[in-house]
C-alpha cells in the first residue's frame, strides 16, 4: 500500500466509524410506550455539601412519586437515575458522562455545586442533553450554552444584593472576604467586591482557601490583623463549621456574613454559640405547609436546606414539559424557554431568560439566634 491508499483507507474507516456510531446508539426507533422515562440527577450525595445533597434527593423523590401517582407522563412513569457529584468537578463530570453516554438521558437535573455543573455543561451542550440545575449559582454558567438552564438565581444577584445590604443596611464600610476556591466562591466574591467598591466601601483583604481545607487559622489570623468591620465568609458546610469556630478561637468578635450555602441547620447546631449573630443571604422561597409536612414525614425533622424547594419544582416543571413535547432533548430545550411555571414552592414564578437563567430573584437575610436561623428584620 502506498501513502495515498493508506490515507483513503484511513478516511473510509473513520467515516464508517462515525456513521455507525451515529446510527447505532439511537437504538430501536419506536420505544415501547409504557417503559419509564428516565432522567438523570447529579448532586453532592457524599462529600462537601452532602447534607444539602441528601435533603435535595428526598425532595426529588417526593416530587417524582407525586408525578407518578397522578398518572406519570402520558401514562409512563418518571424515573430518576441518581449519581453522586461529591461537589467536585471531576466526579460530577464522570457521573454526567455516564448519564449521557450510557443511560442516554435527555435531561440531567443538577449539579448542585457550581463546580459540578461547570464540569459537565460543555459535554452536555455538545451531546445536546438538557441540563437543569436546581442549585448552581456561579455567574459563568449563564454563558454555558443553549441546553443549560437553572431555576436557581445567578450570583450576580446575590453578590450585589449582599454588597448593598452590608454597605447600606449594616453600615459596614471595611470588609474582609474569606472564600472557598470554587466556581461558587469565586463567582460571588468577584461580583460582591466589584459592587462593594462601587458603593464606596473598601475590601481590606481577600483570602481564599482550598475547598477541602479545614484549617483556616492562618487566613483568619491575617484577616484579624487588618481590622475589618465584617467578614464575608463564603464557605460550604464542611469548611464553615471549623472556620466559624476558629474565628471565635482567634478572638475575632466582628460579625460574620455568609453566602446561601450557610442555609444548612447543621452548621448552626455544630458551632452552637460560636455562630451567634452570624448572618447570611438566601433566596426567598414561598414554602407552603403542605411541602413542609411532606418533607418532615420523610426526613424526620423540619430541615429544608437550600435548593431543596428548587429541586422539587424542577421535577414538576420537567414532567410538565416532557408531557407536552415528549422526550426529545431539543424539543424539551425549546419548550423550556417558553414555559412559565407558577404555584411552586421555590419561587412565585419560574421563567427562563435567553441564557437559561431564572428571571428575577428575591433574597432575604437570615440571622442566627441561639442556634437557629431566623429572618432578619
Amino acid at each position, binding site marked *: 500500500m502506498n501513502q495515498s491508499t493508506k490515507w483513503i483507507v484511513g478516511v473510509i474507516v473513520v467515516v464508517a466509524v462515525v456513521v455507525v456510531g451515529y446510527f447505532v446508539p439511537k437504538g430501536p426507533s419506536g420505544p415501547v410506550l409504557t417503559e419509564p422515562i428516565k432522567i438523570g440527577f447529579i448532586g453532592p450525595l*457524599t*462529600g462537601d455539601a*452532602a*447534607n444539602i445533597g*441528601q435533603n435535595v434527593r428526598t425532595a426529588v423523590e417526593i416530587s417524582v412519586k407525586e408525578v407518578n401517582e397522578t398518572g406519570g407522563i402520558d401514562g409512563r412513569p418518571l424515573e430518576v437515575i441518581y449519581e453522586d457529584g461529591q461537589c467536585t468537578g471531576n466526579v460530577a463530570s464522570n457521573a454526567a458522562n455516564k448519564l449521557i453516554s450510557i443511560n442516554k438521558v435527555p435531561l440531567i437535573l443538577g449539579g448542585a455545586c457550581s463546580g459540578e455543573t461547570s464540569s459537565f455543561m460543555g459535554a452536555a451542550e455538545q451531546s445536546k442533553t438538557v441540563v437543569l440545575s436546581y442549585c448552581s449559582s456561579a455567574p459563568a454558567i449563564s454563558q454555558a450554552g443553549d441546553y443549560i438552564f437553572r431555576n436557581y438565581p445567578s450570583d450576580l444577584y446575590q453578590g450585589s444584593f449582599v454588597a448593598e445590604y452590608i454597605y447600606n443596611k449594616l453600615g459596614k464600610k471595611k470588609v474582609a472576604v474569606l472564600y472557598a*476556591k470554587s466556581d461558587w466562591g469565586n463567582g460571588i466574591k468577584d461580583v460582591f467586591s466589584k459592587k462593594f467598591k462601587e458603593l464606596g466601601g473598601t475590601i481590606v483583604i*481577600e*483570602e*481564599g*482557601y*482550598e475547598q*477541602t*481545607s*479545614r*484549617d*483556616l*487559622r*492562618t*487566613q483568619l*489570623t*491575617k484577616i*484579624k*490583623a487588618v*481590622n475589618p468591620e465584617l467578614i464575608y465568609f463564603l464557605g460550604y*458546610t*464542611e469548611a464553615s*463549621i*471549623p472556620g466559624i*469556630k*476558629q474565628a*471565635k*478561637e*482567634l*478572638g475575632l468578635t466582628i460579625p460574620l456574613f455568609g453566602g446561601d450555602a450557610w442555609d444548612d441547620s*447543621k452548621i448552626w447546631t*455544630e*458551632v*452552637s*454559640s*460560636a*455562630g*451567634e449573630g452570624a448572618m447570611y443571604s438566601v433566596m426567598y422561597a414561598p414554602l407552603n405547609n403542605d411541602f413542609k409536612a411532606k418533607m418532615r414525614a420523610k426526613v424526620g425533622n423540619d430541615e429544608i436546606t437550600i435548593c431543596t424547594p428548587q429541586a422539587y419544582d424542577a421535577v414538576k416543571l420537567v414532567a410538565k414539559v416532557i408531557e407536552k413535547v415528549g422526550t426529545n432533548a431539543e424539543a424539551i430545550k425549546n419548550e423550556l424557554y417558553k414555559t412559565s411555571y407558577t404555584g411552586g414552592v421555590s419561587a412565585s414564578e419560574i421563567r427562563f431568560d435567553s441564557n437559561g437563567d431564572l428571571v428575577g430573584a428575591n433574597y432575604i437575610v437570615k440571622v442566627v439566634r441561639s442556634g437557629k436561623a431566623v429572618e432578619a428584620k
Partner: protein
Amino acid sequence: MDIIPQLILNSIIAGAIYTLVALGFNLIYGATKFFNLAHGVMAAVGGYVFFYLAKTLGLNIFIAVIIGVGLAGLVGYGLDKLIYLPLRKRKASNMVLLVASLGAFTAPQAVIAILFTSQFKTLSQHVGTQKLFEVFGGFITQTQLIILTSVVLITAGLVLLLHKTQFGKAVRAISDDEEVAKIIGINTNKIIGYVFFIGSAIAGLAGILVGFDTGIEPTMGLSLLLKGVIASIVGGVGNIYGGVLGAFLLGFVENFGIWKISGEWKDAIAFALLIVFLIFRPRGIMNK
C-alpha cells in the same frame, strides 16, 4: 496587631497534628519498608469510634478515648494479620503491598461513610465556650494545648519504648535488617504486628484530637495522610525523630508561606516543599 505570635502558634498546632500521623507512619515504614496508605484511615476509625461511644452512647470521655485508640490499633493489627502478613509470606513486592494498602484505606472509609453518613461532625462538647489562653498576643485553645501535650508525651514515650526496652531493640533490629533479625531469633511477624498496633493507635488518637479541634468526616484520613507522608519524607522516612522534625517544618513553611500571599496556596506550598526535598535531599533531614 502583630500577627507573628499567632502564625507561630498556628504552625505549632498544625505541626503537632502532622507529627501524630508521621510518627505512626514512620514507625510502620521503619519495620516493614512499605508505604502503608491505610494508615490515614486509622485516624477516621479512632475519631468515629470515639464519636459513637461518647456522643451517641454518652460514655465517659476518657473511656471513649481509650477504646477509640485501642480499636484503631486493633484494626491496624488486624489489617497486618489479614492482608499484609500473608502477602509478606508470599514475598510480595512493596508495590503489591502499597496497592493492597490502598484497598485497605478505601474499604474502611466506605464502611464509615455508610454507618455514619459522610457529614462533617464536631466532637467538642462546648464549641465557642472553650477556654482561650493568650500567648504573646496570640490565642491557643484548651484542645490545642491538649494536642501539644499529647504529642510531647507520645513522642517521649515512643523514644523510651524504642531505646529502653527489649521490644524496642527488636523493632530497631528489624528496621536495620529484617532477615538478620530473623536469624538471631526475633519473631519478626509478631513484632511487626505490635508495631502496626502502636502506629495505628497513635493515628487513632490523632483522629480523635483533630475531631476535637476541627471535626471528623470519613474522608479526613486522606488529607491527614498526605501531610503526614510529606512530613515523613521531608524529615527522613522511617526515622521517628525525622518525622517530628519534618512535621513541624511543614507546619511552619505552610503557615508562614501564606503570610504574604493568599491562603489558597497553602497546599501548593506543602507540595513544593516535598518536591524540593525529593530533588535536593531525597533521604530527608535525618537520614544519611
